[in-house]
Structures are given as structure tokens and as C-alpha cells.
């Protein structure tokens, strides 16, 4: 070794003390000491935000003053009844159409908006709903959807346009939208119930809050994506701002706008089902009842009806491909449009008239064949034959028990039995290493908030439930990543496999998370395992798709260069494709984790317990205080997971050289 002069050591020491690592270590150490000494080994009783008592007190006050206070008499009250009426009128209109009238309306609308294939699919969906014997509940789901989506889009598109034109406004709402995106659908219901009581109104409001951000984001994204060159052309032609918006920005951004509407619909459907928890009725109620009574057949039946509703809206909103749209427009003349509109209305009116004369309104009951019976038999057969005692693999129950015993319990205990301050410190350190000091501070604060929730008095239920939920998420994410990553890479490298998987992946992402619980429940009964498996199944499609898209996004020039150097397939994968796609793969992981998290929470319904169950309990048993505390913990956990994994995309990939 060299003998280094003392001066140099001094300098190095001083520089070292100022290095981020040392500062970070010191800060964390101080925080740890503060927590350990200041707060103690268990959460101190004074570190309690008393959220539950405050919420319950507010709820009590509301139940006394709902009729008299000005905010309710002139604000929430009229709003609530307006929304309720809107849904009710839509429902009445749908009923008035009668089922043949509705079928014809759907067919013609789909034909006009999205083309013949979409029209056939949409009609299939309408028939499907009828055949499943859930005509009436599905109509009310459709009505709820129609009102929520219309309002979401009517609000989302103008706000999106405004935010695209006003960067300051956009920066401001981005914070809100980000927060809204990490929150699982569940959490939106609680405050809505508090303000709007139960029924259609809180469901509509919660749905709008959950779904409108997609519309805002994609509209803003589309408008901002309009090439500046085209904006300049409009300006050079002397277009006013209004003309530029109408003739340049909106048409060019159209695909993004349509995608926004489509996504809004998908998100809305997810929450409309959950909204059955607050008494919105509809097909969601059927799923919920069946889940809570473990009637797998009924749950599958109602789940399929919801999938049919999902596809119905999806087909109606997906629009035409660019090519199809051009061919369609080439055939348009003004006379023809008028003729089509008139004859369309005539067809609907006459269909409705004939149906009324014939006395039909709802889908004929003797045509419907609910599939609950066969499904029940199927799962009964499965549980008779595969529950236990299958050679080698053991059977579903044995599998489920084994997973619970050997994987889920150890991980849960690891988290739950650790002192709370250790968890906080560990998370802060992980967040710091993943995403830097700000993320560490955010995550630390989030967990400190969780630690201050004490729903049922002195004990630490919320904290324990949070750790329980976290353990389920961690296991589900690990399994999902282990499956999705190889499949995604394979699909990214093989265009044929990608083309084969694509429709499957797209379809899987239209189906609401809720529905995934049903078949898993049939196989594995209740408990934490079915919830975890459902969340894995739900997380797989986006995980696979985003990995595959990342691999496919590697520039062809880089592949060609590697090939010309004589890379083997493995070398290509290891040294070119994965490193270049790593960033988008990690971003995909971030999204997948949030999706998985939302299902784990929902799985609280089927015996996964923990935070999800607390929310459901709060909603259904009107223990809003407990529900709100659990909701806050869910949001906090979502923020922690989001911040940490968002950081990975930047920390664990080499940053692109700064452009300035």
C-alpha cells in the first residue's frame, strides 16, 4: 500500500463525510434512535391520530344534521338526488326500450361507431346477459355505468385539454392524479358514503373519481402529443385558438381520446361492481352475495354477466381502426347520414312498438339458462376429486394448506412480529436505496401515519393488518414476476407468440379484478391463498404485456449491430435486449404491483382478511371509522409500494446521458 500523506486523508475524510451515503446513514441512524427511544418498542399510546373516533363522530353528527345543515340541503343533498334520478331515468329508459329494442339500439350504435364485427359482438353480449338470467340487475349496472362514464368523460376531456394548455395547472393536478391512481377502488367508496349516504349517488361519485383521471390523462397526453409543426401550420394559416383546437388538436389527438374513453369505461366497470357494497345493486350485488355465501356457480354466472357488460361497452367505445375509419368516411355523404339516422330511429321505434304489442319487456325467462348449476357441479366434482389425495401434487386443499403453512405464514409472521419501528426503518432504507431521500421520507411518513391508526382503541390491529396485507402482496408479486418475466421475454422475442398472446392479454385486462376471484374460490375455497392466486392471475397479463413490449421496443438497429458482431441468442438477450428493455420492464413491474395490490385488498372479501376485510366491514356494517382507517392504511401502503418500485426504473438502470 501507498503511504498517503495525512493531508490527503483529512481531505478525503471531509469529502467522505459530506457524501450522500454517509449523510443518509446518519439520518437513518438518528431516525432509528428517535423512533426507538422516543416512541418505544411498541407504538406509544399518544401516537394516535384518533381517525376512527373523529370519523364516527362526524358520521353521527351527519345522521342528525343531514336534513338541516346548509351544505347538505343545498350541496350534497340536491347533488345526490340529481345523480340518483339520472341513474333511475336511464334505467327506466333502458327498461322502456324492451329487450328487442335495446338489442336493435346496441346493434345500430355499434354498427355506426365501430363497424359490423363490433356490432355482432355487442349483440352477442346483450344475448349473453339475457341467457345468464341476469337481465334486470345487468340493466341497472349498465345504467350506472352509462351515467358515470358520461359524466367522467364530460369532465375528463375538457380538464385534459385545459391541463395540456396550462402546464402549471397540469403540474398541480398531476400530484392529485398520481395519488388517485395508486388508490385501490375501494377507498373511493368510504368518503362518498360519508357524504352521499348509500345507493346510486355515492357509487356514481366514487366511479367518477376513480375513472375520470384516465380520461384527463389520456386527453392531455393526446393534445400534448400533437406535433408542434402542425400547431405552427394552423397559426400560419391564421387559425384562432378555437379553430386550432377543433380542426387540428382534437382530430390529431383522437386516438388518444378514444383510448381515454375506453380506459375510463374499464375502470368504471371495476368500481361499479364493488359499489354494490354501498347498495348500488346491479349485477355486482349478485357477485358479491354469491362470493360472501361461497356460491361459486352463482358467482361465475353473475361474473360472466359483468364481463358481458364490460365487452358491450368496450365494443361500443373502441371505434374503428384508422383504415376502417377512412373507408367508412369515404362512403359518407350528407344525404346518406340523414337517411341512416332516420331509418335507424324508425327501426328502433318500430321494434319497440312491436315488442310492446307483444307484451315483452325483460328478456324472456324461459330463454335464459343460468350456468350456476353445471358450474357448481363442476366445482363439486373438482373438490371431490382434487381437493386432497391426488398423487404427487396432493390436491388443491393440500396445495393451499401447504402454501399457507410454508410460504404465507412465515412471511406474514416475519412482518407482523417484527417491532413496528424496525419495519419503518427497513422500509425507509429500502426506499432510500431505491429512489433517494425524498421517496424515503415519503415512505417513512406514510408508515408513521399507519402506525398512528388505532381503529379499535388501544391495540394495533391496523398495523398488523397492514403487515399482513403487505406480506400477501410481496408473495403475489414475487410469483407474478417469476412467471411473467420469462413469458414476457419469450413473447417479446417471438412475434408469433406475441400475436397469439395479444388477444388473450387484451381480453384479460378488460375483465374486472373482482371476477378473477370467482374461479379461484371454486378451486381453493376461502382463505389467503385464493386471494393471492387471483391477484397473480390478474397481475400476469399486464406483467407479460409490459415485459414483451419492453423487449420489442429495443431498437432494431441495436439488434442488427449485435447480430453482425456474431451474438448468440443468449448473448443477445443478456447483453442487449434485457439491459435495453430493463427500464420499461421495471416500470411495468410498478404497474403490476399496484394492480396486484388492488386485488389483494379486494380479496379481503373471500377470507384473505386484513385491510380489505376492514374496509368491507366498515362499508357493510357502517363502521365508517374502521373503514376509513383501513382505507388510509391502504393508501399509505400503496404509496410506499409505488414510490419504491418507481425508483427502481431510474436507480437500477443506467441513466441516459443528460441532454443539456
Amino acid at each position, binding site marked *: 500500500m501507498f503511504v498517503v500523506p495525512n493531508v490527503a486523508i483529512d481531505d478525503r475524510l471531509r469529502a467522505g463525510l459530506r457524501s450522500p451515503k454517509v449523510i443518509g446513514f446518519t439520518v437513518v441512524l438518528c431516525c432509528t434512535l428517535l423512533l426507538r427511544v422516543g416512541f418505544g418498542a411498541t407504538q406509544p399510546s399518544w401516537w394516535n391520530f384518533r381517525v376512527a373516533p373523529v370519523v364516527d363522530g362526524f358520521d353521527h353528527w351527519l345522521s342528525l344534521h343531514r336534513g338541516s345543515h346548509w351544505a347538505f340541503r343545498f350541496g350534497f343533498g340536491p347533488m345526490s338526488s340529481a345523480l340518483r334520478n339520472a341513474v333511475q331515468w336511464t334505467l327506466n329508459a333502458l327498461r322502456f326500450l324492451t329487450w328487442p329494442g335495446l338489442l336493435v339500439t346496441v346493434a345500430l350504435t355499434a354498427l355506426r361507431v365501430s363497424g359490423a364485427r363490433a356490432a355482432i359482438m355487442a349483440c352477442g353480449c346483450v344475448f349473453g346477459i339475457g341467457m345468464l338470467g341476469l337481465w334486470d340487475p345487468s340493466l341497472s349496472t349498465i345504467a350506472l355505468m352509462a351515467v358515470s362514464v358520461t359524466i367522467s368523460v364530460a369532465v375528463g376531456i375538457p380538464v385534459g385539454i385545459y391541463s395540456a394548455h396550462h402546464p402549471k395547472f397540469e403540474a398541480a393536478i398531476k400530484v392529485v392524479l398520481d395519488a388517485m391512481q395508486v388508490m385501490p377502488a375501494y377507498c373511493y367508496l368510504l368518503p362518498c358514503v360519508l357524504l352521499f349516504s348509500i345507493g346510486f349517488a355515492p357509487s356514481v361519485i366514487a366511479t367518477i373519481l376513480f375513472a375520470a383521471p384516465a380520461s384527463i390523462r389520456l386527453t392531455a397526453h393526446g393534445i400534448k402529443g400533437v406535433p408542434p*409543426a402542425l400547431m405552427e*401550420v394552423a*397559426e*400560419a394559416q391564421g*387559425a384562432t385558438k378555437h379553430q386550432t383546437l377543433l*380542426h387540428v388538436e382534437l382530430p*390529431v389527438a383522437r386516438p388518444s381520446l378514444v383510448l381515454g374513453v375506453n380506459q375510463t369505461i374499464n375502470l368504471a366497470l371495476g368500481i361499479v361492481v364493488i359499489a354494490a357494497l354501498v347498495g348500488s345493486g346491479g349485477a355486482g350485488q349478485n357477485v358479491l352475495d354469491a362470493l360472501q355465501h361461497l356460491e361459486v356457480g352463482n358467482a361465475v354466472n353473475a361474473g360472466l354477466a359483468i364481463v358481458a357488460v364490460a365487452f358491450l361497452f368496450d365494443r361500443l367505445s373502441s371505434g374503428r381502426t384508422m383504415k376502417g375509419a377512412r373507408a367508412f368516411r369515404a362512403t359518407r355523404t350528407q344525404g346518406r347520414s340523414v337517411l341512416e339516422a332516420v331509418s335507424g330511429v324508425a327501426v328502433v321505434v318500430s321494434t319497440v312498438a312491436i315488442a310492446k304489442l307483444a307484451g315483452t319487456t325483460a328478456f324472456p325467462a324461459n330463454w335464459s339458462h343460468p350456468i350456476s348449476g353445471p358450474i357448481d357441479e363442476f366445482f363439486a366434482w373438482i373438490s371431490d376429486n382434487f381437493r386432497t389425495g391426488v398423487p404427487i401434487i396432493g390436491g388443491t386443499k393440500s396445495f393451499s394448506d401447504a402454501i399457507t403453512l410454508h410460504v404465507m405464514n412465515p412471511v406474514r409472521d416475519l412482518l407482523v412480529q417484527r417491532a413496528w419501528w424496525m419495519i419503518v426503518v427497513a422500509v425507509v432504507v429500502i426506499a432510500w436505496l431505491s429512489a433517494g431521500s425524498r421517496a424515503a421520507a415519503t415512505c417513512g411518513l406514510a408508515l408513521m401515519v399507519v402506525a398512528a391508526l388505532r381503529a379499535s382503541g388501544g391495540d394495533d390491529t391496523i398495523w398488523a393488518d397492514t403487515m399482513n396485507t403487505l406480506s400477501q402482496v410481496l408473495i403475489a408479486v414475487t410469483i407474478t414476476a417469476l412467471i411473467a418475466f420469462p413469458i414476457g421475454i419469450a413473447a417479446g422475442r417471438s412475434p408469433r407468440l406475441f400475436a397469439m398472446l395479444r388477444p388473450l392479454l387484451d381480453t384479460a385486462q378488460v375483465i374486472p379484478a373482482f371476477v378473477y376471484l370467482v374461479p379461484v374460490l371454486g378451486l381453493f375455497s376461502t382463505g389467503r391463498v385464493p386471494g393471492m392466486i387471483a391477484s397473480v392471475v390478474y397481475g400476469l397479463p399486464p406483467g407479460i404485456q409490459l415485459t414483451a413490449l419492453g423487449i420489442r421496443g429495443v431498437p432494431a438497429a441495436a439488434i442488427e449491430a449485435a447480430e453482425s458482431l456474431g451474438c448468440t441468442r443468449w448473448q443477445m438477450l443478456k447483453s442487449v435486449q434485457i439491459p435495453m428493455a430493463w427500464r420499461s420492464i421495471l416500470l411495468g413491474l410498478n404497474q403490476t404491483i399496484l394492480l396486484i395490490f388492488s386485488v389483494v385488498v379486494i380479496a379481503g372479501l373471500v377470507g384473505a382478511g386484513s385491510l380489505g376485510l376492514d374496509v368491507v366491514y366498515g362499508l357493510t356494517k357502517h363502521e365508517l371509522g374502521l373503514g376509513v382507517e383501513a382505507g388510509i392504511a391502504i393508501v399509505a401502503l400503496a404509496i410506499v409500494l409505488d414510490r419504491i418500485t418507481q425508483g427502481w426504473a431510474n436507480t437500477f438502470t443506467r441513466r441516459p446521458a443528460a441532454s443539456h
Partner: protein
Amino acid sequence: METARTAIECNGIWKVFGPKSERIVDSPDADLPRSELETKTGCVAAVRDISFRVPEGGVFVVMGLSGSGKSTLIRCLSRLIEPTAGTITIDGQSVRALKPAELRELRRTKVSMVFQHFGLLPHRNALDNVAFGLEIQGRSKAQRLQRSREVLELVGLQDVAESYPDELSGGMQQRVGLARALANDPMILLFDEPFSALDPLIRREMQDEVLRLQRELKKTVVFITHDLNEALKLGDQIAIMRDGRFVQVASPDDLVANPADDYVRAFVQDVVRSND
């Protein structure tokens, strides 16, 4: 030519990007090289003290390499980029004094622009792209379609009127761009490197097209290019631009015969050689 009316007259145009840009104008700092000015003041002077005059029906070509400020200059003429200082007179109107509505009117009726990137709207077919300017003026549908067909015919595209931009070749797209600029029968056409993105053969064809239209329609043209051959072929007057200033303004013959400095000489030599 000398007796013709003045279509465009510019005096002392400056465009400085950056904070407190108006302080740079005519200050000693303005003479600093680009990077020194930027480190000292945070400003970039793209156009420095440019004056010129284009008679009605004249073709004024501005030639310069990329970064010389020529695209900024042409955008200052119709205030797509707001100049920092100077006066611009178009057809006797002081452009910088115009209110927003008057400026729009100027752009709608007197000044049209053809862009390097074509700038066609992807969701409209060729005919509707040409009709765009007329639509903005609020002309009736019948009127604008009739006029657009006429102009498309003028540029030889009557057969592809229903085609969308992505179905047309680069040359055809720029013909649509040209037709769109001609549709509202402007007095002045501004060309911002319109043919740089085209193949050499197509480029020559388009240059001939511009010369033909110029002979037939007698528009006043300001043409930006980085190709001296193009400049010599099209221009009545050629300005060589470098670092935001005009190095020399001369007729094509004069430019080749008497280059003002080594910079211009280097260019011209190249042309002389390639013409041998």
C-alpha cells in the same frame, strides 16, 4: 424591377432568445460569438440586425447553414416568432403594430407559408388539407372545395385528391403543402426549406414547379434554403446568412463573380467547380 412596388421591407430585425432579450439588441454584447454571449447573458441571438426589401413579384432567397438563423428570420416576417426589435412592412402595413385579429387576417389572406416538414393534417385527405385555410376563413363548403380542386389541379394532383398524406410520396405531400399555401391566393409565399426533405430528382422537379408557378401567378417569394444551387436557380436576390447576420446580399451572377468574403467564396467555389 426597380420600379416595382415594395412587397416586404424589413429594417433592423433582431430576434434574441432568452431572459431580458431586448437589452442585447444593439449593445456591444451582440457582437460576441454565440457561446460567449450565451455564457455571459443566457441569451442566444438568432437574428441580428437584418434589413432587406423584396419588390412585388420578386424572389428573395436566404441561404445559410443550419443554425444560421434563417428559419427564425422567416418566422419573424409573419410573427410566428415575435421579433425582439425592428420594423416589418408587408404591403404597406406595419406588421409589428397589428393586433391579434389583424395579424390573423394578414396570415389568412396575404402571407402563406410552405414548411420543410410539409405540416399536413394526417386525418384529412389531400383535398381537405388544401381546403383547411379556406375553412378557417369561414368560406362555404362548396366554395372551398371548388377552389381546392382548382389549386390541386394547378400543382398536378387532381387524381389523388381523396388520398391521405401517409398514402402520398414526399414530393406529392409537398405539392399538397404548396397547394394549401396557394389556395387563399396570397400576395406573398414564404418557403422554409421546402425541398430539403426530398430526393434530389424530386427536388429539381419541385424547383421547376415553383419557377413555373412564379411565372404564372407572379407571387412575391421569400425562400429559405441551405443549398446554394437551389438559391442560384430560384433567386432574383440572394442573401447569405451566417450567425444571424447577412454576410452578402446580391444577385446570383454578382454573388458568383464577386463574393464578399472568404466564407461566401468557399460556397461559391464549390458551385463553380460542380458546374464545370
